[in-house]
């Protein structure tokens, strides 16, 4: 990064199965308005807008950034639309941050959203394609076989996934924005939920949500002034990285993809993190299916390969007494407006280091990871944010 930059405004909607009270513009503006208010700004103060979302077929609007230009106060400004599959919320934040880190703009509004209830997520992700056998059954159908291979390879007990499902929903109870609020959640409830994609139970899978996320990313002078005037720290960006690899190729490690490992290595090197479990206070990691917590613990280097399930099993990733809480917000397992899910991870990491996470705050959090992945576990976006400005 050429210049320091920081998140100074954060906003999100209350994520729900159906936001039937708003238009798409209305929903996106809730998040944008909240982020601007947090930053003490108005649309007129923003230099550029970067928007991200997953496939346009969810809402049936081709390149909806055109329709949303006015809603986001982008008229007369640069506006970019990012689409990198499930990782898009993270990639979008990174593209926005680069616009500031390079000195091109000082105040960038970045927004990600999905209004999945306008159509049906399972349909949109499994649109039957010519010549293909109609076997694809949503994201779960794609990831469940990989999870099975992980369980086999690691020798993990069968209930580790269910433990993640319970833990993240317990976290969600502390987050008023989270979609799923299941006060009675326990292992039994998960186990008794329908086995949708064996080995994945219904409650081990992410919901389909409507929702939006927004952040204002600002240059150092703007962020410093805001810190002084509000008395709150900004979330300084210590590192950001993206990596991609092909969906399918001979010899591909689908369980522990190289692109994820490379991306983590890069972002931690930038942030000066050598032992993420020790040096980070928490992480918001894209876990749409329960077993991806242990899988990503290994992929991101929080433990050795094969040991991820042990961390989860020991409670290390729980906000309740764990040494490295993952997904204190409830994570993707509790709220999943797909295009925004990655940005929510980035945003929640920023909330934590600003001490603004409310009931799901990790005490004195000063450094956190935001992570997103997409496609066939092939697109990765990550950032590390901290309460102190980087050296």
């Amino acid at each position: 990064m050429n210049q320091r930059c920081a998140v100074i405004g954060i906003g999100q909607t209350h994520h729900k199965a159906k936001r039937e009270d708003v238009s798409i513009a209305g929903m996106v503006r809730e998040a944008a308005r909240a982020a601007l208010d947090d930053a003490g700004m108005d649309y007129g103060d923003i230099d550029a807008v970067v928007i991200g979302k997953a496939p346009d077929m969810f809402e049936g609007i081709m390149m909806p950034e055109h329709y949303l230009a006015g809603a986001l106060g982008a008229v007369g400004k640069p506006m970019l639309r990012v689409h990198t599959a499930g990782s898009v919320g993270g990639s979008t934040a990174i593209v926005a941050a680069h616009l500031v880190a390079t000195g091109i703009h000082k105040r960038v509004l970045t927004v990600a959203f999905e209004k999945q209830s306008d159509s049906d997520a399972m349909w949109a992700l499994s649109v039957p394609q010519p010549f293909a056998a109609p076997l694809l059954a949503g994201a779960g159908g794609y990831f469940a076989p990989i999870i099975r291979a992980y369980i086999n390879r690691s020798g993990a007990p069968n209930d580790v996934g269910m433990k993640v499902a319970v833990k993240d929903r317990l976290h969600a109870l502390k987050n008023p924005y989270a979609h799923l609020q299941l006060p009675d959640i326990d292992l039994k409830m998960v186990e008794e939920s329908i086995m949708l994609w064996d080995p994945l139970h219904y409650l081990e899978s992410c919901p389909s949500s409507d929702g939006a996320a927004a952040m204002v990313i600002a240059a150092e002078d703007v962020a410093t002034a805001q810190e002084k005037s509000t008395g709150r720290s900004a979330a300084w960006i210590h590192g950001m990285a993206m990596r991609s690899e092909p969906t399918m190729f001979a010899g591909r490690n689908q369980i522990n993809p190289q692109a994820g490992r490379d991306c983590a290595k890069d972002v931690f090197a930038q942030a000066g993190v050598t032992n993420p479990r020790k040096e980070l206070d928490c992480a918001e990691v894209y876990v749409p299916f329960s077993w991806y917590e242990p899988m990503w613990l290994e992929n991101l280097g929080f433990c050795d390969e094969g040991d991820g399930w042990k961390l989860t099993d020991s409670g290390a990733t729980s906000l309740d007494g764990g040494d490295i809480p993952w997904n204190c917000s409830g994570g993707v397992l509790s709220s999943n407006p797909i295009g925004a899910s990655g940005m929510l991870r980035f945003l929640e990491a920023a909330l934590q280091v600003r001490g603004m996470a409310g009931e799901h705050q990790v005490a004195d959090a000063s450094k956190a990871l935001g992570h997103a992945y997409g496609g066939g576990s092939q697109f990765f976006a990550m950032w590390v944010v901290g309460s102190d400005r980087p050296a």
Partner: protein
Amino acid sequence: MSDALEIQEPVTMLSTPIRLNYDFTAGVAQSRSLRGYAEGRFVGQRCPVCKKVYVPSRGSCPVDAVPTKEEVVLPNTATVTTFCVVNVPFAGQSIEIPYITASILLDGADITFMGLIQGIPADEVRMGLRVEAVWVPKEELGPTLASVKYFQPTGEPDREISTFREHL
């Protein structure tokens, strides 16, 4: 204005059906695999650089980014590398649930593709299971992977998982 109109609820929802017609083209490489299906056989391609066999072929090696031209006919026999039991209903679904989808590694191929498993109780399907393709009757064969009705067990001993670890 009539009373009836005045008590009508405000409009909150709008139905906007969208239908688009496409004329999809499979391209050259994929068409060769598709023609294979129409003939009741698996046709893949070998990368001239890494020598790996891709089936079905998309015309390129995703690692070396070079065109794949050399054709390889592959047998009906395969190994289940991993699988899941699908038990979720959704719009547009055409197979009755529950069904088993598996990553199928054809003998001689270096890449898996997704296939339907039948002829075995769901709880007996396992990683390493040996299977063979069952094609639809000859007169129903067509240029689509749907020409493969399903894969069923061959009865051979399972393959050790360690022997296909690099395909997971």
